[in-house]
């Protein structure tokens, strides 16, 4: 993401705001249902009712975090730790509405807004605020408007600094409900007080590699020369050198780029063993991918497939096709052939993913042959139905037994894609 880009040379100090919701999904659930407030609550990944017994925690409420519940913990482990933990099913429609509301509030006040995840965004305040006092005032207004429009239980932490790296670090430094302002002359001292793992871009692997060369804090990182960091981390050494000094990217980018790929993957509630089960689920995934392609006006010339087994071991492959496609059945027949070349038939499948790339923006091309034209007309009619009545209005007889539960977390919400 933008934070890992090299720092840009700009002639003036910018004012960047970073906003992050506290325990996002759990807070929204507590806002909707007051009987969950003040309690240890966790939001499950997929499914509801008894399916929550085999889910993964996507977000824990503040109260749950205080007693050790963490994101990505299995619900079985979480229940073992806190037997009275209330696990609720995720409601992506609710969260996407709150995401839209807070982005709209930010757009009202910032020069430019860049969404960083479902519950995080950067906003540039250089012109809107003028100085750090003005930026602090705007942050307070944004916080009040979020309480008014999203609900008072949906609290946010805000960081304000000259670049995105330090704004995010400032935001993370005070949770929940914090407001941390780091003007340019305080950046170096502030970054020095932060743990290495708090810096966005230093994950457990990099942290461990740094520890191997004796770097355990920002101050010790500053003592390593740029040459040595380059030697150890290649080009990432430049980024580490700058990050240790609070130098980072200050360009907030609005707008969406055209997609390079359209794909869909799914972790199944139980592992897939037999060919028929794998084929029907793969076909249903292919229909999802090609519907999105047709809806957004793309055809594709390349396919990709990914399979993951138990134990998180996986393999992927991709292939150029001789003719572009936009029909789920065409994608499926090629994806199945490709999958057969890489699949280990002795291992049950935990996750399947399929992707279309080499996208070309165009209308559905007409075909020369009557049979293809019939498919073409049928697809158009089915797409009209789906646009009018939504996903699930039609499905192939062979995929009737497939059922993909909506995912709670991720960059996109399933109902929006």
């Amino acid at each position, binding site marked *: 993401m933008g934070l890992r880009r090299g720092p840009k040379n700009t002639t003036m100090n910018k004012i960047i705001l970073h906003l992050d919701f506290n325990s996002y999904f759990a807070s929204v659930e507590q806002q*909707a249902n*007051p*009987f969950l407030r003040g309690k240890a609550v966790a939001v499950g990944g997929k499914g509801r009712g008894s399916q929550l017994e085999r889910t993964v925690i996507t977000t824990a409420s503040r109260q749950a975090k205080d007693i050790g519940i963490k994101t990505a913990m299995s619900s079985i482990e979480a229940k073992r730790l806190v037997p009275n933990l209330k696990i*609720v099913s995720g409601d992506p*429609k*609710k969260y996407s509405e709150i995401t839209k509301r807070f982005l709209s509030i930010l757009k009202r006040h910032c020069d430019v807004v860049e969404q960083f995840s479902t519950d995080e965004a950067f906003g540039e305040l250089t012109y809107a605020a003028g100085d750090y006092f003005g930026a602090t005032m705007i942050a307070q207004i944004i916080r009040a408007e979020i309480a008014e429009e999203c609900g008072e239980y949906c609290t946010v932490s805000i960081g304000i600094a000259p670049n995105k790296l330090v704004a995010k670090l400032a935001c993370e430094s005070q949770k929940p409900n914090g407001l941390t302002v780091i003007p340019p002359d305080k950046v170096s001292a502030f970054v020095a007080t932060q743990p290495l793992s708090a810096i966005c871009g230093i994950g457990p692997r990099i942290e461990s590699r740094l520890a191997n060369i004796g770097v355990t804090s920002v101050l010790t990182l500053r003592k390593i020369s740029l040459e040595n960091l380059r030697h150890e981390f290649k080009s990432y050494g430049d980024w580490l050198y700058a990050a240790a000094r609070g130098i980072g990217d200050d360009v907030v980018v609005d707008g969406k780029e055209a997609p390079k790929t359209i794909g869909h993957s799914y972790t199944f509630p139980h592992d897939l063993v037999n060919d028929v089960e794998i084929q029907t689920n793969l076909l249903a995934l292919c229909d999802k991918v090609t519907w999105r392609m047709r809806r957004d006006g793309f055809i594709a010339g390349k396919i990709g497939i990914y399979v993951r087994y138990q134990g998180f071991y996986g393999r992927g492959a991709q292939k150029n096709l001789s003719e572009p496609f936009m029909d789920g059945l065409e994608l499926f027949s090629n994806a199945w052939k490709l999958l057969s070349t890489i699949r280990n038939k002795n291992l049950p499948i935990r996750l399947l993913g399929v992707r279309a790339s080499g996208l070309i923006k165009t209308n559905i091309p007409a075909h020369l042959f009557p049979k293809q034209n019939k498919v073409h007309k049928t697809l158009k009619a089915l797409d009209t139905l789906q646009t009018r009545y*939504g996903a699930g*209005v039609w499905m192939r007889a062979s995929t009737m037994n497939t059922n993909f539960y909506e995912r709670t977390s991720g960059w996109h919400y399933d109902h929006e894609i």
Partner: protein
Amino acid sequence: MHTFLNDPVDVTVDFANKRIQPLSIRWDGKTYAMKTVNLVHGAREGSKRIFYFSVSDQTNFMKLRLDTETLEWRLIELYTD
């Protein structure tokens, strides 16, 4: 106790300040007077707009679904402490 339902209900609403506020819900032969509207969110089902109302009284949380095409209200979640 958290229950997922899909029951048609009768809802008395108040229209004020360009907002709809459910006041009472008639379900399963009983009338529940709602104290607060905690959250309202919308979603699309195809080209149809659906609104969800998360409301509560002293002892119950209810999630209501309003279909703006048919104007049908349904009780889809009930949570009792």
